[in-house]
């Protein structure tokens, strides 16, 4: 098991990773998700031993990796564009790690190596590519070769830095599933760095959201989405309405005063709020119902349709409230578009339950 305890990394005094703690159980997939420049690649490089933490420890099965150089960690690292050795054939690339011999280790027979290479190429679906040179491969094929190369020595941990970032969208989605398939077959532990939330949610059993060098939240994909712990995480993952207000708590219910002269919203929470504490109500657009008539939800509010984003299967309505707030509500287009009950400028009612949103204190 990989564990990071209070790891910080800085470049020339500029912090890139700040006090990051993370556990990666064996055979699991953890995605580190964040915008570019948030320090996620640096975190990965620190695990690989390519950057030295300025403080904190990185441990494998409880043993500190501090003094262990990259090539003795037994991990493998895969880059965005594969970084194949362009002077070596596909088979030589895949067999690279197999041909490295440690003092004291027996030399692997070449037949043994050939068989292993063939097996790996089959695993990634590239049978017969042995003699090809990296320059002749497509982006997707290069990534597969890189994956096979990384898996050759059955690494304890595979670190993937934006592994699918260079692929176009359709290929990326296909490859995501193949990657997961291979992960399950080999039982390798994966740490994937990505800026693509869809990719993180698809492939990972746990997602670590990172911003400005800090790990904001580490949790399962559904909990990251449904119960973000901060406005940043709520906003970064998916689409969300954030309504700022002041809290008045009674038991597990909180009244949120969000605008002058408007009745407060109610929300359920397990967090304790001080009277009049600033809070943020985060609600996903798909959890807000939109209708021409008033509904009996715990929270209802009237506004008029400002804009409609038609996405085919769903539509997102931008509704302006009298207070000036614009709330996004999403509805599945279960009827033909001509049968839609309301359109631009129409007055509508929005409604949601007191458990639909999450109340955040930061």
């Amino acid at each position, binding site marked *: 098991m990989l564990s990071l305890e209070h790891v910080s990394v800085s470049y020339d005094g500029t912090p890139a990773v700040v006090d990051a703690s993370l556990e990666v159980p064996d055979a699991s997939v953890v995605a580190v998700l964040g915008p570019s420049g948030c320090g996620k690649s640096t975190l990965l*490089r620190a695990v*690989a*031993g*390519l950057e030295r933490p300025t403080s904190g420890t990185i441990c494998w099965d409880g043993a500190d990796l501090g003094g262990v*150089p*990259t*090539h*003795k*960690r*037994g*991990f*493998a*690292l*895969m*880059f*965005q*564009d594969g*970084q*194949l*050795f*362009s*002077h070596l054939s596909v088979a030589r690339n895949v067999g*690279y*790690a197999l041909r*490295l011999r440690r003092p004291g280790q027996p030399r692997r027979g070449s037949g043994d190596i050939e068989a292993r290479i063939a097996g790996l190429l089959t695993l990634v679906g590239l049978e017969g590519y042995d003699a090809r040179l990296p*320059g002749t491969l497509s982006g997707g094929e290069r990534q597969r070769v*890189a994956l096979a*190369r*990384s898996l*050759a*020595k059955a690494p304890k941990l595979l*670190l993937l830095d934006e592994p699918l970032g*260079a692929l176009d969208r359709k290929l990326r989605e296909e490859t995501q599933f193949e990657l997961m398939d291979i992960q399950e077959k080999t039982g390798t532990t994966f740490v994937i760095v990505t800026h693509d939330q869809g990719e993180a949610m698809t492939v990972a059993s746990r997602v670590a959201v990172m911003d400005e060098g800090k790990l904001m939240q580490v949790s399962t994909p559904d909990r990251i989405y449904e119960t973000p712990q901060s406005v940043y995480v709520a906003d970064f993952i998916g689409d969300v309405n954030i309504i700022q207000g002041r809290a008045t708590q009674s038991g597990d219910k909180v009244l949120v005063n969000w605008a002058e002269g408007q009745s407060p919203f109610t929300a359920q929470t397990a967090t304790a709020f001080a009277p009049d504490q600033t809070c943020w109500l985060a609600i996903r657009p798909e959890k807000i119902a939109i209708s021409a008539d008033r509904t009996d939800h715990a929270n209802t509010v009237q506004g008029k349709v400002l804009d409609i984003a038609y996405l085919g299967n769903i539509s997102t309505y931008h509704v302006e409230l009298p207070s000036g707030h614009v709330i996004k509500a999403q509805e599945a287009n279960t009827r033909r578009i001509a049968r839609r009950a309301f359109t631009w400028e129409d007055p509508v009612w929005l409604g949601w339950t007191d458990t639909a949103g999450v109340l955040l204190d930061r």
Partner: protein
Amino acid sequence: MKRTASLVALAALPVGVLAVFFVLPVAGMLGRGLWPDGSFAPGAMLDVLARPRVGRVVWFTVWSSSVATVVAVLLGLPAAYVLHRLDFPLRGALRSALLVPFVLPTVVVGVAFRQLLREGGPLGFLDLDGTPVAIVAGLVFFNVAVVIRTVGATWEGLDPRPAEAAAALGASPARVFTSVTLPALRPAIVSAASVVFLFCATAFGVVLILGGVRYASVETEIYLLTTVLYDLQGAAALSIVQLVAVVGLLTVAARVRRVPDPTVQRAVPRPHRPRRSDLPQVAATALLLGLLAAPIVALVTQSLRVDGAWSLTNYRNLTTTGDDQVLLVPVTTALRNSLQTALDATWIALLLGLLVAIVLTRRSRSAGERRVRAVLDGFFMLPLGVSAVTLGFGFLVTLGREPLDLRTWPLLVPVAQALVALPLVVRTLVPVLAGIDDRQRQAAASLGAGAMRTALTVDVPIVLRPVAAAAGFAFAVSLGEFGATSFLSRADHPTVPVVIFRLLGRPGEGNYGMALAASVVLAATTALVILAVERLRVRGVGSW
């Protein structure tokens, strides 16, 4: 049609100049050897090649150049790493300093090594004066900068991630170097080594001064045969051998020069602070620095000593014509000549170099056009490898008589020097011009800029600094050019290297002291020019 016409127009001037001032003299020189009495007699030439002395000379040239190349590569590699991958204070100054030996006048280097190794000199006890070791050391001194520059430029831009991937796969640092880094550097190393070999095999001043009478290379032998023995057939035979070898070598070098794959995204490595594991490389670089500094320090020190005491007498004597009036003009006049000549050579080299670079970097529209470009590319590199002596003597025999008597033409020496500097200018400008993304021009055009305005706003600003750097380089090379100049400069209008060589050949402590002082002045001038060039921070200057 219009394109072809404009290309021909651009190429006409450099091709014409090269034809008249390079092909004609060299051909004239070769003709003298092959048609000794007006009839074709190649047999006589073969006899020349069968002479035992010629065999020895060729063999010496090959092995001394090979050894010097290997040593230069071995010394240059760690320095290339330290200067281009590590980050430490004064790195820029050190890089500039290491470039200086490359442009130091050959005569100066010869004098400096003599000074270091002669009896009673700081390293006199090694008894190396006049030995092949001294010659090889001199050649390495010159050329190690080529290795550092060429390999360093590649190393600097080398994507660090393949090496990191290899390390993550379990390869030790040594294994990463041999299996990933070295293969990636190989084209640069081969390219640098072939150029270094070329420079070593055609070196003139260093071998002439350090070799004395015992050791001759092909180049000095041509000089000896033409100026002392008047054996033009022998000289022509050797020139042909040299020309064939050089063309072959240039072809090989052009083959290995790899074009980077533009579709691959590259990460640019950040230089890192020296770590403990970098200690061997740092130590090797420090050693190299010491080796490079020693002859120069010896030269400067000795120029300041007269009769065992510190004195500026040698420098004061630069305004005189030396003991026994061995010179026709004082050294200060020669310095003025040198500066004027180098200035003329610089603008000629720049003009020609720019035209050549533009012609070579226009995108070819057909296979035929591309082939013509490749031939032109090789053609303009030729002066790099043709003996300056052959060139200089060829000038004398072809341009010194009707219908083209140019002996008193004031630009004769500058043109010869410009031809020697031309390959350097072209090699500096071609990557820059080729590196301008055509889409930048298209963007400018789409924003409403005409062809003229596009050139002024896109090309000129990008090219300005490299052109200035190339100019500095051409100036420094011309300032120190000795081989061709020694043939062509008139006795009453000598340049400093010519004067230094003359002073060395005459008896008298005073003359020797003046040669040292003049060497220091010349070295300081070229060093200043090169330091100014380095301030321009043009990537890849001095790399091949």
